[in-house]
């Protein structure tokens, strides 16, 4: 059997030693290439969960395995390398690098990947072309919202990640655009062979996923709901 793309085991986290538990998750597993929608209300702690998965926060207890590698068993540069090579992230506000072109935003992600440098330019151009970016050299901030979203998707999958984490990817889009954007994310992840964990409180996304998880159902009693501090 293939190693899961993501395996979370008894994960707990709180921002202060005497504070409430923000994440208290007994388990969650995503198979390779699987796409899961994790529904959660605003402030439930879903962004904190994504940062724990990406190794940007350290849990109080529990393990996160991405492609079988324990994210928190590594430290420093090794953990950063694991994140750069195995995990892509898509944000509600895209978080593109201001002052950098669309192409450079994708190239920036490739800098930290395991893909040979000689292939970076072709990989970035190919992804942007596939995603319909007709002005790859334009500064990211000059692109339309839809185009920025596409650049963010291209950047997230550029390193051929095992797992893409999408944090409220449609929250700032109108319903019509949101549907198209979500379809784009899902199709791109599928074509790149990446599993997708999408956390959102947007009920419109439910019909696009065959597997749904609910934050309240997953979390132990009393866990979750602290929100990212």
């Amino acid at each position, binding site marked *: 059997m293939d190693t899961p793309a993501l395996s979370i085991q008894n994960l707990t986290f709180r921002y202060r030693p005497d504070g409430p538990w923000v994440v208290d998750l007994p388990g969650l597993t995503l198979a390779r290439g699987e796409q899961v929608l994790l529904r959660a209300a605003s402030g439930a702690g879903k962004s904190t969960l994504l940062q724990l998965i990406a190794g940007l926060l350290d849990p109080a207890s529990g393990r996160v395995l991405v492609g079988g590698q324990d994210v928190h068993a590594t430290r420093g540069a090794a953990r*950063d390398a694991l994140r750069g090579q195995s995990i892509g992230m898509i944000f509600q506000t895209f*978080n593109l690098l201001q002052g*950098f072109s669309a192409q450079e935003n994708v190239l*920036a992600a490739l800098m930290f990947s395991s893909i040979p440098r000689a292939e970076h330019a072709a990989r970035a151009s190919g992804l942007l072309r596939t995603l319909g970016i007709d002005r790859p050299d334009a500064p990211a901030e000059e692109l339309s919202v839809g185009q920025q979203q596409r650049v963010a998707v291209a950047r997230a999958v550029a*390193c051929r990640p095992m797992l893409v984490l999408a944090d409220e990817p449609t929250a700032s889009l109108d319903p019509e655009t949101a549907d198209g954007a979500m379809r784009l994310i899902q199709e791109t992840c599928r074509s790149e062979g990446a599993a997708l964990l999408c956390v959102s*409180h947007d009920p419109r996304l439910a019909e696009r996923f065959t597997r749904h998880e609910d934050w309240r159902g997953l979390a132990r009693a009393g866990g979750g709901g602290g929100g990212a501090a």
Partner: protein
Amino acid sequence: MAMTDMTIVARSLSLRRFSTATTALMVAVAVALLLTLLSLRDAARKSFERGPGTMHLLVSADTGPLPSVLNSIFYARAPARPITWARYLSLTDATPDNPRRLPLDFAVPVQQGDNYQGWPTLATTREFFDRFQPDPDAERDPSRRWALAAGRFFEKPFEVVVGAKAAAGAGLRVGETIYLTHGTGNSRSGAGGMDDHGHVHREYGFTVVGILAPTGSAHDRALFTDLIGSWILHAHDRREREGAKGLTSEADLTDADRLITGIYVRVRTRPGSDASSAIGPVFEMIRRQGDLTVANPADQIRQLFVIVSNVDQVFVAMSVIVLISSGLAIMLAMVNSMESRRRQIAVLRVLGAGRGRIFSLIVTEAAIIGAIGAAAGIVLAFMGVQVAGAVLKARLGLLLDATIPLDALLPVAAGTIILAALAGLAPGVSAYRTSVARNLRPLG
């Protein structure tokens, strides 16, 4: 083309181009100030060290060795007291029956007091060009000997050879006839000279017969003429006062007219050697005679630099402080920019950049501001030394061949870049500690 850390740094600098430019300009001004000071100090030192040329000792009737050196070698003022020709002959008498004869290689008589448009004149003998050389290394390196850019050396009275700077400054060419000014008239260096009347000797024209190639010494700004012509000039003044008519000739000279103001002395040495164990004894022998001032120019210049170096160290220290302040400016500019770039740092962290790499990006950015400032500062310094050289010449008549010394340029440039990198440490640490969670909001 793949993206590199330098692409990120360059883009970051370009996004804050105003801040980058102003900070780099501050560094440039500080670097230029320091390099200009160092180069002027270096030029002054070289000029002074080159000044004595191949002479070992300077004999004059000045009040002390340092004024003697400044007056007779660097043309600061015309020496106030003369030496009679008879005294010169007795001092340099090398006949075997002279019990006080000195083991001299040369003893070149010089006389100052006249000038042309403020450029000092040195009346001397042909030995000045044939035996004395303007560069201490001339014995080893023939290219450092006297050389003519045009014409020939003087051969008889009323011929004049012009130093390179004086020729350029006064616009003199071979074949021109000039009239010398005696004393303070239109003169900077004639003040307080042998005779302080200050008037132009219209009766005697001097023909420019040669222009010297530059030597890098103070002699570049002087004119050189035959001693007898100068004596005739001054004898003519005396005879006019006495009511004599007509032009004066060599036959009219009296012992009172035959005066000099200094003697350039070189003690005998082995061929190819500049040093001689006889320098000290000869110095003592002349000193003991009591009526003359004897100076070892190299010693006097060293002592002068000991005195001056205290002041010049203060200036250098001040410009180093200005440079350190510019480093602080880099730090402040980058610390202030940190707030607006935390999101970019957080995004780079999410993409896989480690804390160490973020830290090095910031330190590199600071070092590049330092490098830009250092490069611009070097360009400014090149202009600065030209301006400072021109001002020193115009205000003080001081002629310095100022170029930025390579042994100062490289350490200053490297030091500036290191200082800038150090200035990047605080913002680098701030970037290192940037919280990804806090700076990627709104996240839900």
